[in-house]
């Protein structure tokens, strides 16, 4: 339908830049003044506990939600101020891999992957069929073209979602928890695909994850979002080595996956008692 966009990028090798990003719901800031940059070819992993605003952040980055304030520059263009047409033009340059695949249930796997090509390119249907086969091979699902999403397991659906996100060979790939719910082998396959795409083809990846093993395997840059008392702020940012060496107790508890630490999942004894007596 629309012509493929020109690959311009006025801001050099910075693919994505977030400036003073604030998102609040009913006066409570979920994201509070975030600033970071993602450079071309990086695998940028955003980590954080449940409820830290990872998904909200991702929705803002792909233009699905307008932030309360601040700006998001994708390929040098501010998507928070872009018109819907401009936003659509920018969207053709990135792919989004949804947490649960978000596959079109009424279509087969093949049709799901073919859709972006049919809608946004003049590529011949016979070639689209080949591209679909290549994308399925990429995610280890060769031969599954004619299955409906409902006939696949959750992990397979996720991988089809990834194949669909890669259908137009985007310069930038957003992934929401790409490996959660996958078995260890498939986790490694998806991680390897991310690695190959970024290191060898030059794709940039922004991955939201709380899978530490996988994150450290793929990341070139990591960012940790705070939750609880440190909701909405960036706790740490840096290369995987810097993150490992960072002494912040909040960060270390998360990286090591320990129950005891500053990330409280229980009320203190006093508070619990108060809560029980008041509510009961």
């Amino acid at each position, binding site marked *: 339908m629309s012509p493929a966009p020109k690959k311009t990028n006025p801001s050099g090798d910075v693919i994505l830049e977030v400036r003073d990003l604030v998102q609040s719901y009913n006066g409570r800031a979920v994201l509070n003044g975030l600033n970071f940059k993602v450079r071309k070819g990086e695998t940028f992993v955003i980590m954080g506990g449940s409820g830290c605003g990872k998904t909200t952040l991702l929705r803002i980055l792909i233009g699905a*939600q*307008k932030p309360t304030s601040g700006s998001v520059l994708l390929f040098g263009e501010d998507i928070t101020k872009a018109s819907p047409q401009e936003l*659509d033009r920018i969207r053709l340059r990135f792919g989004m891999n949804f947490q649960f695949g*978000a596959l079109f249930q009424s279509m087969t796997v093949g049709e799901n992957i073919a*859709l*972006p090509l049919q809608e*946004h390119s003049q590529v011949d249907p016979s070639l689209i069929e080949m591209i679909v086969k290549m994308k399925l091979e990429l995610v280890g699902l060769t031969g599954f073209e004619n299955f409906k999403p409902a006939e696949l397991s959750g992990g397979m659906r996720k991988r089809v979602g990834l194949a669909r996100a890669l259908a137009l060979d985007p310069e930038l790939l957003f992934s929401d928890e790409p490996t959660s719910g996958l078995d260890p082998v498939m986790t490694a396959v998806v991680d390897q695909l991310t690695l190959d795409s970024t290191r060898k083809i030059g794709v940039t990846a922004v991955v939201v994850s709380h899978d530490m093993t996988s994150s450290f395997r793929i990341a070139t840059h990591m960012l940790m979002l705070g939750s609880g008392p440190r909701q909405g702020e960036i706790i740490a940012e840096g290369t995987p080595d810097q993150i490992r060496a960072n002494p912040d107790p909040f960060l270390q508890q998360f990286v090591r996956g320990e129950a005891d630490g500053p990330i409280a999942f229980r009320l203190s004894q006093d508070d619990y008692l108060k809560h029980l007596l008041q509510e009961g």
Partner: protein
Amino acid sequence: MKFSFDSLLNAGGSRQTYGLLNLRIFGWILYGFTRPGILVPSQILAQVIRIGVQAIPMASLVSLSVGFILAMQSSTELGKMGANSFIPDLVSLSLMRELGPLLVAIIVVGRSGSAVAAELGTMKVNEEIEALRVMAIDPIRYLVVPRFIALMIMLPCMTIFGNCVGLAGGWVVCTLDMGMPSSFYIMRAMQRPELWDLYSGIIKTVVFAHIIITIACFQGLNVEGGAEGVGRATTAAVVYSILWIIIADTLLTGLFYVVL
């Protein structure tokens, strides 16, 4: 954002108001006439079959029953006055002007309006609508417009078909029960109504089709809160459609009554 035709097509983001939904549907259809690839015949045909053709058996059955009922009920009263020869008139006029459009519309609400609301609602819950938007595919153009066009075409067709089936129902009663000659039934049923009687019914079906499909899509696209939300939206689509169909029917009948 300055106003332009393009911004109208893309306005609203994820939340839609009912008025905006209507504007955008018409915007995309007009735009579709100027550019290829927007109104895809195969997609429209698929919807014609799913929300139109597949509802025909049920609509026919209801129309047939109504034909029976009209003929039988009127024969008891009209028979007392020896006016049985007016039964064909009564059956064909009430079907064309009123009962045909109304009953077929209500069947389609239950059969297809609810299905569209549930389907779009499920897509919303599964993030499929979001995925379309992120792929720079407008959900209104891709999902709503084919359904809209399909029902706008199919509801009048189904109503005309339903009228024919209803007339056949009346014929069965008149010929078998009252011994009326077939030729007499057909002549009376065809002669009495004027072309305007048919047109007024068709005008109603077009309005009904618009009500059914826009309400179903509106409810579906605005689902929030998982499976429970889908259920609520489906119910709302059916209830509001029937409500508005009856209101519109009253207004239109009143209008035709006053004007003509």
